[in-house]
């Protein structure tokens, strides 16, 4: 019984969202507001049962060894709430500073490694090796030159004029556009898949017209 009601509720809201394609309307509005409330409510529940209870409240309540140190993050976290009181609102910057400082510090060497050095490493491939098919050789050349040209496009402190920066950045934007077109085309499939999922729900699970 619950299941049937659930299916119907789900189907009504699905149609409600699709009705937005035609026009904004009360059913969409209801769905929109409900989903905002439910998802945030869910977020609170999950944060409590998955973080605060096991990682803070239980260790403190059980008096685990060294648990008192957890009071530091707890107090830092509570400082966020000072935002509600304008006169001491600036205290909320302390927890933010804790997360920002450590986060940026941890991130710096890791970004250097994965965003820069790994990419550079991958760019250093031989253009040709014995037995390589012509399309791969051509690909390698396009890949390396394309990377260089697109990098020129991202030079901000040089005017994009002249044979090097001018031509380079022009080729760069061409390469970037080819890349964007490819990504767009490649994405279509994924997006249609999403619709397929919903059609399977509406016609299959709900109406049982298809298997």
């Amino acid at each position, binding site marked *: 019984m619950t299941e049937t009601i659930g299916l119907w509720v789900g189907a009504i809201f699905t149609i409600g969202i699709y009705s937005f394609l035609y026009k904004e309307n009360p059913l969409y509005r209801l769905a929109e507001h409900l989903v905002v409330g439910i998802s945030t409510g869910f977020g609170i529940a999950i944060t409590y049962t998955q*973080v605060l209870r*096991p990682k803070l409240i239980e260790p403190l309540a059980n008096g685990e060894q060294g648990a008192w140190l957890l009071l530091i993050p707890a107090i830092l976290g509570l400082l966020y709430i000072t935002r509600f009181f304008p006169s001491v609102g600036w205290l909320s910057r302390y927890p933010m500073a804790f997360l920002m400082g450590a986060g940026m510090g941890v991130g710096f060497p890791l970004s250097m490694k994965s965003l820069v050095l790994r990419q550079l490493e991958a760019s250093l491939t031989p253009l040709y090796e014995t037995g390589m098919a012509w399309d791969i050789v051509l690909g390698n050349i396009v890949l390396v030159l394309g990377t260089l040209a697109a990098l020129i496009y991202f030079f901000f402190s040089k005017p994009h004029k002249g044979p090097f920066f001018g031509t380079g950045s022009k080729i760069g934007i061409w390469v970037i556009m080819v890349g964007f077109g490819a990504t767009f085309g*490649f994405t279509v499939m994924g997006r*249609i898949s999403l619709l397929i999922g919903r059609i399977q729900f509406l016609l299959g699970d709900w109406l049982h017209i298809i298997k």
Partner: protein
Amino acid sequence: MSIWEKMLNVDRRWIFLLIGIACVVPFFTPLGLPILPSQEVISIYDYIEDLSTDNAMFVGFDFDPGTAAENMPMGVAVLRHAFARNVPVFITAYTPLGQGMAGMAIDELTNPATGDYFEYVNWDAWAEIRDQGFTERADIEEAWLAAGNTLPENARGWIFEGRDIAFLGYLPYFHLVILGMSSSIVSQFPTDVGGTPLEEMPMYQDHKSLRDIDLAVTTAGSSACVAWITYGREKIGLPIAFGVTAVMATDYYIYIQSGQIIGQMGGLRGAAEYETLLLDNDYCKNPGKAYIGMDVQNIAHLLIIFLVVLGNIAFFAGGFNKKTKLKGRR
């Protein structure tokens, strides 16, 4: 207003309607075009094929309901493969909703109504066998059968909670959780979502940290999967496989090329390819959801290309190429 201009300025809702129709019709008249698995998908399949009950893997349900249509068949296919081979699976989620998604995937694989399913044995249900000291998969199953249980006719096998599966679920700041698990899983997940202590699970006893794990498959609809690379692969060399949405797939070719991941399922097609491999190797009887969906893809892609061609015909026939400048781009 000429007919061409009308065509170019057509109300978007007509396009919406056409897409809607194109995506419904193939369900009633299937085309059944063949799907050839690509190397990226075969690599994952072969890798899992080489795992046995002594190994263990992670499956991360790192997506939200939004991308479930693409990611769910991947997660289900990989889990099906692992369950059939009795490879112990730790299931995690990068987002709170991902935990619900993982639950739905387990439901789908353990629901008798779906045909090809696995019979789920609750942690408490096989407590006696545990108390007798059995930890090996084969011994547990033997003891379980000896205790008078029989496998239902359309079931593929048993799943012993705590031996074949540990549903760990979601924790916030999951990238830090991955990092923490590289020294100890139990430090991050003292219990599974049902509250069963991880330390008591036989599968945990053999695999205490990510260093003891042979593969992590992340099915992701966002950059969540990269966290597995940064904190799992880079830190401790954990083998990773991606199941990502089609749109992300292009980005992560880099990782295949650099050898950071062993393979990748890209979008519905990737999932359909994995399903084809499972089907061909008799891991299931019926084609999965992704397989059927590929027919719709054919029609929809053709329709969109037709629309683009039509738009260009109208654009040139109406002479707009001489009047308007390219808007919105430098």
